[in-house]
């Protein structure tokens, strides 16, 4: 049976109970019983939710009654004044409802009092009946959610947490799921269990449902935040599109002016990324003030003697779960080893966001550049073009063959063209979707 069918049956029973009890016990005010039963039962998937909403409704009605009793002697019974106050109270009710339903319940009771007052009715005994009707209506709804195809709140929390965690796993592997939807779903079931924890405590349990929700929500928020990591890809190529030649020495493509400009761009980022092959082959120190050095390796074959691990800056190595322990042993405290599920830009970015890094400068080599450029996983692309040819078909090119998000139909936006010495620097922007 689906949750919607279960809730429909609960509503049917709750309303039938409310009509029966209301019409028999409160023939003039049965609608208050029915309305409360509807409100409490509406949207309450678990039993805890119904109890929580019932408590809010009763608390709001009592609060509204107290306020009405306090202000009724000082508010003159005048049609225009009453109408103005009613709309003002209605506004506050609509505003505060987003914070807690009890405020709305209190304002609704206050409006009712003002309406009664404007008709010259005595509100004292009527409010006792109103509160009694609301309590009875809430009990009808709670009884229905408790006995008619009930859903235990603990099970509901586990279901929502499992769904949210499944979505998180998919996000880690690059797919796009609506994390905010799961955050909202958890927030819906959270208030009653948080109230339960506040009143009864965790009772020594290792995982109170409220703790499960808090932990999962924290992960979801992190995942949402990690989407805010800005990625800056920088690459220099020859006129024929090569990033290096086949010699042992690294091919210098940039001019001094271009290098100085690139240094400035690096300083704007808090992480610099190069592939493990580049670390092994070029042995770069990759220094920039306040920026962490990051590399990605599937094989885990990294020599601790490389300049990359000289301890002069925070160093992070992203690798698979299997090789993580081996690398931790090999590199010791020279680097933080972070295990990732897949070697894809989304997972790399997510892992770096988890490390507290919010802007990433991607420098190479070919595999990393291809992965980020093909997936469109960048905000800016800085392309420096050196005024010469390499002319070797076996030399490494800017990108390898891949399926690129930005093809002829999905072009990048050219944001600037500059001449730095004899180097032309093109700046492209990618609207991230």
């Amino acid at each position, binding site marked *: 049976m689906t949750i919607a*069918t279960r809730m*429909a049956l609960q509503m049917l029973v709750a*309303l039938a109970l409310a009509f029966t009890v209301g019409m028999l016990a409160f023939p003039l005010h049965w609608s208050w019983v029915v*309305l409360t039963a509807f409100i409490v039962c509406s949207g309450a998937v678990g039993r805890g939710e119904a109890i929580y909403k019932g408590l809010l409704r009763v608390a709001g009605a009592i609060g509204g009654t107290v306020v009405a009793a306090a202000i009724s002697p000082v508010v003159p019974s005048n049609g225009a004044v009453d109408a103005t106050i009613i709309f003002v109270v*209605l506004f506050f009710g*609509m505003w505060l409802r987003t914070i807690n339903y009890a405020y709305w319940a209190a304002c609704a009771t206050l409006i009712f009092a003002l309406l009664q007052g404007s008709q010259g009715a005595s509100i004292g005994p009527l409010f006792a009946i109103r509160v009694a009707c609301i309590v009875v209506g809430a009990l009808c709804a709670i009884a229905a959610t408790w006995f008619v195809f009930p859903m235990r709140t603990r099970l509901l929390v586990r279901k929502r947490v499992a769904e949210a965690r499944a979505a998180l796993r998919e996000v880690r592997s690059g797919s796009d799921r609506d994390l905010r939807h799961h955050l909202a779903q958890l927030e819906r079931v959270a208030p009653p269990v948080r109230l339960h924890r506040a009143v009864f405590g965790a009772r020594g349990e290792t995982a109170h449902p409220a703790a499960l929700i808090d932990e999962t929500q924290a992960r979801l928020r992190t995942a949402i935040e990690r989407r805010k990591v800005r990625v800056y890809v920088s690459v220099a190529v020859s006129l024929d599109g090569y990033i290096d030649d086949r010699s042992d020495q690294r091919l210098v493509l940039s001019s001094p002016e271009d290098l100085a400009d690139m240094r400035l761009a690096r300083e704007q980022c808090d992480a610099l990324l190069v592939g493990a092959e580049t670390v092994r082959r070029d042995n770069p120190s990759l220094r920039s003030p306040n920026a962490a050095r990051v590399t990605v390796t599937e094989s885990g074959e990294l020599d601790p003697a490389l300049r990359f691990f000289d301890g002069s800056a925070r160093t992070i190595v992203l690798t698979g779960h299997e090789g993580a322990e081996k690398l931790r042993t090999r590199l010791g405290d020279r680097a933080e080893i972070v295990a990732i599920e897949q070697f894809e830009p989304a997972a790399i970015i997510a892992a770096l966001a988890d490390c507290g890094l919010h802007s990433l400068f991607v420098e190479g080599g070919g595999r990393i550049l291809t992965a980020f450029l093909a997936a469109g996983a960048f905000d800016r692309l800085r392309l420096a073009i050196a005024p010469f040819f390499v002319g070797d078909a076996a030399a490494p090119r800017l990108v390898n063959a891949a399926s690129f998000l930005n093809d002829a139909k999905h072009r990048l936006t050219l944001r600037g063209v500059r001449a730095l010495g004899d180097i032309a620097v093109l700046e492209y922007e990618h609207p991230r979707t």
Partner: protein
Amino acid sequence: MKSALVGIAGVLASFLAMYAICARAGVNASPAILAAALAVGLARRPENFDLRATLAKFASLPIVALGAALVGLTFRSLPVLGAILFCAGMALSIWLRNFDKGGAAIGRLIALPLLTMLVVPVHVDTGHPGLGALLVMLAGAIAFAATYLLQRIAA
């Protein structure tokens, strides 16, 4: 805060417009209160400004409002039958959530006037049943139009 301001503006606009019409027609203010109550309900869920869905909703809300008013009339003459219709309508509105967003939207459309009828029982004393029905339908249309337009302006 902004959505509450837009919401209350919609409520005021619906109430005042309908109140003026009721005064002109020489009937009590029940349809105006109905319009305000409907606007309160509509303000809770911002419109998505999809033209087709909006037109469908605009066309259907007055009819559903009329249906709710008929249930209200049934309550007065045959309370038990009114209660059965009310319970069935509300349960149906929730059950329709089984059919994705479209079903849920229809369900909300059914539930809103029923609930409003419970909060604001409509007794239109016109001496002419056709005019009463017309005013109830007009209340639904005005509430929807005012809420929609103000949300659109504020967006």
